[in-house]
């Protein structure tokens, strides 16, 4: 092998090592994004201290996963697919679920939730946006949504706000609708 070729191989090896390093950084950053908190324990560190740190990091991560979710504009700690894992483990009452689904199962109520997705609104603002619904019907729809906890009304200002379950329910309904529409088009 000529000296030039050896030199070329050496450079390529160095470039490969650099690329590997970059790839590791990118992977690490992605992992941090998905997992939130991550304490770096290098593959090369297999000593006792490393093991202890890793154990502690996993413990902290596990605890955080159980208890913390940070809003979309804040720092996200829990992986998206695992966000509702805690809720899934809770035994769900079918009557309660049916009640919530029943409240959702009305076109006008979905329109109300859609309007509230962009922020709290007074009843007259909702009335303006949803002119096809009469005031009394709008009030009764809001009452249904409030009773099942999808909407909450401020007592002082009187604005209606969509709750966390309300937002989740609306998003779920939209996902199902989109899925069914795609199925129908196929």
């Amino acid at each position, binding site marked *: 092998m000529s000296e030039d070729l050896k030199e070329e191989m050496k450079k390529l090896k160095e470039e490969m090592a650099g690329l590997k390093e970059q790839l590791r950084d990118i992977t690490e950053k992605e992992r941090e994004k998905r997992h939130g908190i991550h304490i770096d324990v290098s593959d090369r560190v297999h000593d006792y201290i490393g093991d202890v740190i890793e154990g502690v990091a996993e413990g902290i991560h596990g605890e955080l996963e159980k*208890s*913390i*979710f*940070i*809003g*979309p*504009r*804040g720092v996200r700690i829990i992986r998206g697919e695992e966000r509702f894992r*805690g809720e899934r483990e809770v035994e769900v009452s079918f009557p309660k679920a049916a009640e919530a689904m029943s409240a959702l199962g009305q076109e006008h109520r979905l329109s109300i939730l859609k309007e509230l997705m962009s*922020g*709290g609104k007074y009843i007259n603002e909702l009335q303006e946006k949803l002119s096809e619904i009469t005031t009394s019907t709008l009030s009764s729809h809001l009452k249904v949504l409030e009773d099942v906890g999808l909407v*909450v*009304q*401020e*007592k*002082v*200002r009187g604005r209606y*706000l*969509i*709750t*966390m*379950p*309300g*937002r*989740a329910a609306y998003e779920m309904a939209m996902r199902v609708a989109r899925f069914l529409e795609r199925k129908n088009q196929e």
Partner: protein
Amino acid sequence: MIWPDYHLGDTVSKATEAIRLWQAEKGVVEISKGTLAIHVKLDGYVKGYIFLGHGRLILDTIVETEDGAIGKPVDREIDRPFLMLGKAEGMQQSFSLAGQENLSEMGCSNQQEFVAEAEGLLDRFSRRGRIHDHRHSSDNNGLVFAFQNEANGLDILLADGAELVYKAMNTVFVSNNDRAVLKSSGGVVCISNGKSVIVKR
């Protein structure tokens, strides 16, 4: 701190009209006509009242996050004596001397019965005051309320303009314009300039 030497006035009055004691974007405290009141004095000056009658506390202990609103409003009828410190001067015109019939209407057989309850409340509040400094709030525009809860503890509301702190049995709510913290049995939520942190139990 050394708790200031608050003491009660000598006479019991009644509200001659419904009075809104505090009103802000997120809450209201009001009393209805006929509610009994006794002065709370400091160095001879009226610094507040203890009320007994029909009071109402409304508080929107709700935090709006990007993922939806968390919390629910508080709407409590207050039928046990409660304390208010701060902003007492201008209110005296809304009260007149209470007679026996007014005391009876509020379930007191005589003035001493109300005074004894009011003293008990002031004493319990004063004991809390040794730990938490409330003095600044009664010296400026802020208000301090102490409501008795079902567990015979005190629910405290501190309010100064848009800033408010509410500490009740199962709820802590702190709000200042676009920043808020709500602690309830479900967990804790903090929001600041649209960014939220939710800690579930």
